[in-house]
């Protein structure tokens, strides 16, 4: 087949499958925050990628600091906390200044957040320069596993996957097992009625938006382990993240996970056998066709309307 032996094909599948899993992790991390902000709250946040870059820059800065004071092997957990905190704080502020005035005008949020993304990109450019920067990776994150001589599994990829699994589980617990999750879901389904059963919906909106941004900040921290960070890196991922959330069914977290998995694997494996852009085109076409048949996405919940 294609001039490869069966064993080679097997190895290719394992390695491309794994690189698909890494892509899946990044897509899912990006999409999780968006699944909350867009999928649950209905805010079209075009500046989502820039919140990720906040987390990424925070991590890069902290890694430089870690090199200077010699704690490179331990800085990463701190970096994630700082990334979360910073993105959360900026998200909180943006909600207060901008988004809360636009809940009743979803299309205006599109413009407003797009403007915001441009402003943020320029701030990054002025503060950190136009050149891409990379974090100093801790030693334990370098190198790769070699289960057989022909298969290479990079450790940073495994790390990002583990992190993704953890954060996904956390978001699930938060949304479906906690009091806050209940408030968020009630507010999303019927804002007026949520207020009339005693929920402070304005506070819920603010915290929910900030939390979505915070999760994206952590995604940015994870992102530094597999790619370099520039002022516009975030915008590369924004289309993919929206695609994941829409394809999965806007209000469904499970849908977001499966669609991230499907899109990442399809892209990764197809790209090996075709050119990179043909792989993307094929995936996109498939998504378009499926969305034509199921306009509400893969996992629309079944209730009487």
């Amino acid at each position: 087949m294609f001039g490869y032996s069966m064993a080679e094909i097997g190895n290719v599948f394992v390695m491309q499958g794994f690189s698909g899993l890494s892509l899946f992790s990044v897509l899912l991390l990006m999409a999780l925050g968006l699944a909350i902000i867009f999928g649950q709250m209905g805010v079209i946040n075009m500046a989502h990628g820039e919140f990720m870059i906040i987390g990424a820059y925070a991590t890069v800065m902290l890694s430089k600091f870690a090199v200077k004071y010699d704690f490179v092997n331990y800085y990463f957990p701190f970096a994630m906390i700082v990334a979360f905190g910073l993105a959360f704080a900026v998200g909180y502020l943006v909600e207060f200044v901008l988004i809360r005035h636009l809940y009743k005008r979803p299309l205006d949020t599109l413009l407003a957040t797009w403007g915001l993304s441009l402003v943020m990109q320029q701030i990054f450019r002025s503060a950190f320069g136009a050149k891409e920067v990379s974090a100093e990776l801790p030693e334990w994150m370098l190198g790769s596993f070699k289960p057989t001589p022909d298969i290479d599994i990079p450790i940073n990829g495994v790390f990002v996957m583990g992190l993704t699994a953890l954060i996904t589980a956390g978001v699930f617990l938060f949304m479906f097992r906690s009091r806050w999750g209940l408030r968020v879901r009630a507010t999303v389904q019927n804002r007026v009625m949520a207020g009339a059963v005693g929920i402070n919906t304005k506070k819920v909106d603010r915290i929910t938006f900030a939390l979505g941004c915070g999760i994206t900040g952590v995604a940015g921290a994870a992102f530094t382990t597999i790619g370099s960070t520039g002022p516009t890196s975030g915008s590369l991922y924004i289309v993919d993240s929206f695609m994941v959330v829409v394809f999965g069914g806007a209000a469904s977290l499970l849908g977001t996970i499966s669609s991230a998995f499907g899109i990442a694997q399809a892209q990764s494996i197809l790209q090996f056998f075709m050119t990179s852009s043909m792989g993307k085109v094929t995936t996109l076409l498939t998504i378009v066709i499926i969305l034509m048949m199921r306009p509400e996405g893969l996992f629309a919940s079944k209730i009487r309307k």
Partner: protein
Amino acid sequence: MLEIENMQVSYGQSKVIQGVSFKAEKNETLAIMGRNGMGKTTLFKALMGILPSKADKAMIDSESIQGDESHQRVAKGIAYVPQGRMIFPAMTVEENIETGLEKSGDRVIPDDIYALFPVLFDMKKRKGGNLSGGQQQQLAIARALVTNPKVLLLDEPTEGIQPSIIKDIAKVLNEIRKMREITIIVSEQVLSFTMEIADRIIVIERGNFIHEDKRDDVDAAKIKKYLSV
């Protein structure tokens, strides 16, 4: 006890509630009756803080609710069962009721709620949106009750519900008043239902209260005339 003096509600230039005043005592059920478009729902939404309103006085017991947002009014003791139920369709029955626990801070739903509405216990894990109209109405009442209200507002609770369930709802409302001794204010068009639960009946027309009667003195023919088109 709920006390309202000279309440006005407007949609832009047009005044829909023209300065109404009323008082509803503890352990009293008050029915506000009127045809469609006479301002019942508007009045209720204003009482709940969903629509902005002006009033000389708006008090629950001795606390003013003037200018409060909905959730603050809930905290002071108003609960609301809106027209059309407005339950959260994508949440389970249990979760729907739990949204009302915000005020009490409880984690579990009190047993007496399921004692009042056994059908909700059986359907605990179902999605609210998949319940029948009557079941959704019971769910909406349960959700309002767990906030431990002093004043319970029900906006047309019988609308679109089959007659046998309407009887059940009347029974439940009487039971709730007996158990909790709260104020219940209900808006209605169905006189037979109102006669089963209300102590006092007020007729609303074009945003004004035009007639008031104790239940025992009600002239059914007269009220029916007000309600007929």
